[in-house]
Each structure stands twice: as structure tokens, then as C-alpha cells.
């Protein structure tokens, strides 16, 4: 099962196994990892599951769609490595993925 590492803003690190086809957001929520709110439940409609993808991983993830790009305008302090974690599906290729949470979601 792919291992995903979530780093909280205070550097607290959580590495958990997340089954394929779940999203990075679901991996955090199901493991009670703080820092990802996901208010809309994964509909790409709220920008409260915003993460910064580790630089080394950013290009390995499927590119973001227009809806996500638009929604990222609403995120707190987005940068070029910003993604909405509900839009990243876990697969074997993402084993070892590292994402960092912003200091707040909203």
C-alpha cells in the first residue's frame, strides 16, 4: 500500500498507508491527521484541503484541471506547488508522496 507523508505546518510528520484510489485528502481525514479540513467533502468546491506538494513529487502527479486551478484562488497562501488534496488520487506511482499543509485552511 502506498505510504503518504503529511507534514503539518509545525513540522509534525505523519506517514500513513493509504490504499490506492483514495485521495490524498481522504488519506488524511481517515487517519485523523490535522490540517486538512475538506469542508465540501471532496467536491473540489471549497479549497480547504489545500496542500503544498513536495517539489520532487509535484510533476509526478496528474496535472490539475481548470476547476481545481480556479478553486485554488480561494486557498490560503497558494504557491506554485499548491494542490487540492481531494483531487489527487493515490496510486502505486505515488508511493512515498510528501505533502505539506499550510498554516491554516481558511
Amino acid at each position, binding site marked *: 500500500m502506498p505510504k503518504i507523508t503529511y507534514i503539518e505546518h509545525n513540522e509534525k510528520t505523519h506517514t500513513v498507508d493509504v490504499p490506492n484510489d483514495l485521495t490524498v485528502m481522504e488519506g488524511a481525514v481517515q487517519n485523523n491527521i490535522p490540517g486538512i479540513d475538506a469542508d*465540501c467533502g471532496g467536491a473540489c468546491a*471549497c479549497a480547504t484541503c489545500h496542500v503544498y506538494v513536495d517539489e520532487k513529487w509535484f510533476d509526478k502527479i496528474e496535472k490539475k484541471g481548470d476547476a481545481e486551478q*480556479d478553486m485554488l*484562488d480561494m486557498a*490560503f497562501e497558494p504557491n506554485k506547488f499548491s494542490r487540492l488534496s481531494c483531487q489527487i488520487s493515490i496510486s502505486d506511482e505515488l508511493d512515498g508522496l510528501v505533502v505539506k499543509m499550510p498554516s491554516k485552511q481558511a
Partner: protein
Amino acid sequence: MIKTDALVIGAGPVGLFAVQQLGLIGLKAELVDNLDKIGGQCIELYPDKPIYDIPALPECTGESLTNNLLEQIKPFKPNFHLNERVQEISKENNNWKIVTSGKKIFLAPNIIIAAGVGSFEPRKFLVKEAEKFENNGVFYSIKDKTYFKNKKVCIFGGGDSALDWAIELSKFSEVTLVHRREEFRGAEHSASVARELEKEGKLKIKTPFQIKSIEGDKKISGITISTEDGKIEKIDTDYVLGFFGLIMKLGPIAEWGLNIEKKTIPVNTENFQTNKEGIFAIGDICTYPGKLKLILSGFHEGALAARACFKLARPNEKYRFEFTTTSKKMQERLGVKKGD
């Protein structure tokens, strides 16, 4: 003071359907919602997105679902209290006394919380000076545009609100539109109008910039904006407007003594009552073992909560289960009673 059988908090699909279920069994409802329109997340977040899992509706949109529900509850003539957030509740004999942000007061034996993820509020600037200047130079909505006449105004955001207000205010104010990336997500037409105004020198556009700080003592004197690469610019301005859409916040609900688990309210699945008698929670805001955050689950939850409301609203009457296909009473309430 408004007396009613049930006060429904939240005019999303689940709150609307609860009104239908209450109406069928003869209970009157009042609806309160913090948004300025009916439909909740369906209207605010995804009016055009298709929904495929509403029973017997192969495909609909957030908007059409809302319109259909409104049609369905028309016979019950519910009153909507929009732009109102429920602030406080307190027990008064057998009733709950409910006070809204607009100081409306309701008295009802039942409260049904169908508030989704909470109330929608404007997403705010996160620089620390923004709070100090809020409503004194920093705004998230415009009530009277003439307030900005002949002033310097910086507008942040890339959606329709930001574009539309930038275009509108540029007619009589000195406007700078700031957005974090080159593309605007608002209507293409508005974006091209804005670019045209920029060429004519009637509007300044700064991209890809974000706010860094707001300067000023008693009032705003200017702001500093920066790019991701660290390029910094200063802009003299009188007002700063942010249009970043809305965010959902649980808000005052958290202070009513209800059990709260991860921003949701645990309920008894027999009647969707919370830990307080006469307060029910349905839809996304409630939780119980096996809870699914689907609109269809909310409909079921509302049907059961409505029956439980009956007991408290009509303590001396006996509730009788009936079908709309055959119940004359229900058909009368629906306004569809056919002659025998």
C-alpha cells in the same frame, strides 16, 4: 416575535425537504439562512455542476434541484429569513427562543439544524492588518458603491465579483485589480472588458500579485503586494476590497451546548434528535455510525426528524402515519385534493 412549529436552520436541499415533510403532517416551518439566496451549497458552490444520485432524477444541477424543491414546498408557504444567522437559542418553557443576527426572534418547540458545514461567510484577507481595518477601509462586499466615488480602490480576486466591481467602480474611482495569477476565472467577457479598460488607462491590473501588508494608522494609506518570486510593489490606496468567495464556518452553533464531534453533531438515528430535546440535526451537519454525506440521506433524516417534531408541537394529538397517495388530509395540505 414569530411563533412556529419548527425553525429550520439552513435553506439547502435538506432543510427545504424537511419543510415539505413538516408541511405534510401539518406543521408550519420558518427557514433561516445566512446566505442571501435559497439553496445552500447547491446554489453557492455548484449551481451548474451535474448531480447524478438524487433518487428518480437521473441528472440535475444544484440549481434545478433547488428550484424543484421550492416548487415542492410551495403549498406549505414557508417563510424565508435570508441574510440572517441564528445567534442564540435559549429554553423558554416548552419552547426554544431563537434570536438571529438581524435581531429577529422566533419561538418554536422544535429547531431543525440543516446547516451543512455551517454558515457561509466571506473569505478574508489573512494579513494581520486586515482585521484592524475591517469595515474601516477593508471590505468584503459593497453595499453602496457611491461610497468609493473619486477614491483609490484596490480590488483583490479573480472571479466574477472582483471583475464586475472593478469594471463598475472604474467608472468613477481609481481602481487597481490585483490577482494571484494571470488568468481570471470570472466570465471571459468580463475579463476582456477589464483588459480593454486597462489598455485605455481606466483600470490598473496587477498580476500575479498577492497582498503582503496594509499600511496606515487610523486609516489605510497604502498596501504592499508581492509575487511568489519576491517582487514587491507598493500602491497608494484608500480602500481595499477582497472578493475571494465564501467559506463555511460552524459559527454560533458550537455554543449551544450541543455535543459536537469533528464539526458535526451526533444524533439519535431514531428521530435525529441531538443531545437537547427539540433540537434535531439533519444533512451533512449530523453524524452517526454509517453516516453518508449525501443529499439523499438528508432527505430521509428530515422525514424522521419531522415526525419527531410533531410530538413536541402537538403534544395532545396522536400522530398517524399516512401516505400522500391516499391521505385526504395530506392532499388538502398539498392543495391537490380531488373531489370524491
